[in-house]
């Protein structure tokens, strides 16, 4: 957990430990990135407002180092921060002042994405969608034979959409299925994640073939 305010850091650490998590804390983005290498955590909780290297830059660097899930802490007052944070690669966000139970729920939901799909799928789990091959059992995606590195959230989104190609999913349905947000999810989570996914799997992200926008409704996975 990267949080500059000592009291908030201590309070959240205490609350999360009592929810059963092992917490390592850092007071700046630089220290956080060091800890990421040192401790190899399952998930990062990242405050956006940081002295020195700010939360967005920290988020981008952590994202560049691997598909580590990131939940950011943000002030709701600044809608711009949320969009910028999601664009920087965060999987989800929690608004300050944080309810520890809400934060815990989000953390667990993000972590579930990384493991949920694994054993249940049938043996011949490789699906081909044009130049894209999705291995549901191995949780691997390759594009023209080259593995694509997806975060758990991006992978979950792709798996959900591609389960029934051609079917239109509303943002709310996607939020429920991927983010476990039972109500009032922020549809910008979906939009930001779709953007990131397109950047990785589409030839021309501006003219997507796989993840298509259905204006006024949501998204669908293109039938190949």
């Amino acid at each position, binding site marked *: 957990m990267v949080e500059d305010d000592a009291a908030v850091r201590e309070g959240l650490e205490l*609350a999360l430990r*009592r929810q059963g998590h092992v917490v390592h804390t850092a007071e700046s983005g630089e220290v956080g990135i060091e800890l990421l290498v040192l401790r190899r955590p399952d998930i990062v909780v990242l405050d956006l407002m940081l002295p020195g290297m700010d939360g967005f830059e920290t988020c981008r660097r952590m994202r560049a180092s691997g598909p580590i899930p990131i939940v950011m802490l943000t002030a709701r007052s600044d809608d711009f921060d949320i969009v910028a944070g999601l664009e920087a690669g965060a999987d989800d966000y929690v608004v300050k002042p944080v309810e520890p139970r809400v934060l815990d729920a989000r953390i667990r939901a993000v972590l579930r994405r990384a493991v949920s799909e694994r054993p249940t799928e049938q043996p011949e789990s490789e699906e081909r969608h044009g130049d894209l091959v999705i291995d549901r059992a191995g949780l691997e995606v390759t594009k023209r034979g080259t593995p694509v590195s997806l975060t758990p959230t991006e992978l979950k989104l792709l798996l959900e959409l591609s389960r029934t190609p051609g079917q239109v999913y509303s943002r709310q349905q996607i939020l429920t299925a991927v983010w476990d947000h*039972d*109500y009032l999810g922020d549809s910008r989570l979906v939009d930001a994640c779709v953007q990131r996914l397109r950047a990785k799997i589409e030839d021309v992200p501006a003219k997507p073939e796989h993840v298509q926008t259905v204006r006024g409704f949501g998204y669908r996975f293109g039938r190949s």
Partner: protein
Amino acid sequence: MTSRIRSWLAGLRPRLVAAFAVIMIVGATAAAGASYVSARTAILKGFQDQTMLKLRDQIVTYLPTVSLPPTQATLDAFGTALKSSNAVVVYHGLRSGSGIDPDSVPADLRQAVASSTNIQFQRVDAQGYPQFFVGVPVQTGTEGQTSGIEVYTMVSLDQQQAAIDDLSRTAWQTSALALPFAVVLALLAARQVLRPVRALNKAASELGQGKLDVRLRVKGSDELAQLVTTFNNTAAELERTVGTLRTMEADARRFVADVSHELRTPLAAMNAVTDVLDEDAEQLPPDTAVAARLVSAETRRLTRLVQDLIEISRFDAGRAELRREDLDVAAAVTDSLAARGWAPGTDVVAELPAGITARLDRRRLDIVVANLVGNALRHGAPPVEVALRVERGDVVLAVTDHGPGIPEAVLPLVFDRFTKADTARARSEGSGLGLSIARENARLHGGDIVAVNTGTGARFELRLPREAW
């Protein structure tokens, strides 16, 4: 059109014109009248004097030859001598053969002549023809004794009257010619006065519309220029005062926003551990447990209050953004209710017809629903009815409770910040900002919320435009 004419007539200009015209008419009439009277007197007096002198001279010349008492022949001869004056000589019952008819002489004049020793005259208007009668009591001897002989003559004043009429007509015509001049002068004067008045009027109305930097150019140093100067000074003072007030208000709002933000971080830390306090309270000594629970509960309350303050200061600063998305309103409201454990069928009865769609900000709609229903549950009594309908292109959500309603005195203030309907319960669960925030959110959508008493409770109606879908 008629109203424009009426307003023109009610204006300063016709009054000025009328005043000028009246002054001019009165002045011209007085001048014309005075000159008429004096000219008339001069003309008439000259002619009359001339007539009387001539008659007297003739009488005086002839008189020494007259013997008394006169006979008819004497009278005739006397009359002949006075022929050029067309005079008649009368002596008691007798009269000369020539001259005017004595009966045509006015009785007044005859009486005056009979009882006087001086020459008498009278002007008579006989059907428009002015006539001048002269009567002379003829005296004999040096003691001024009356001889009993009277001489009368009459001359017509027609020519003189015609000359006088001419004179008066000229006077009136000259006066009439001056009238248009007076009107033109009046209009010019009115314009001179009205132009700055009109400019002032325009400037004053601009000032009233909030254009506080409006100023007028001062021309000259008359009363109007003074008025313009006063106006400019007033406007400047007003601008300064309003500017100060605005700055103070902005400062105050920024202060609230800053304080709220400063409070948020320590509250975030405290809020993170309230659960810990609650969970462990049981193992604490009784007093400490009470203290821990109190700190925990009040921390949550304070957190809510600060969040609401931040939210409302965002509206004040005009930084609230609307993120419209296509919504099934019934589903969104159902989600909001469910998220707060207000499942339909308990204390909340929802009547939400499916298929009503609108472009709304989901988060803001949720805030409104939560505040309205939460408020109804806190201050009203169950069941709280939540009903959705479409009315004239608007989405209308009515939240009705069955409580005591809102006191009439509080009703107009119910959306004001920190308004508490029930003063006895000053510390309610809400922050006192919930309804204000709800209404700000509705207005951000271009809609509104109104509160009414139904007789069996209070009803809040949220109305939002659907926007294109």
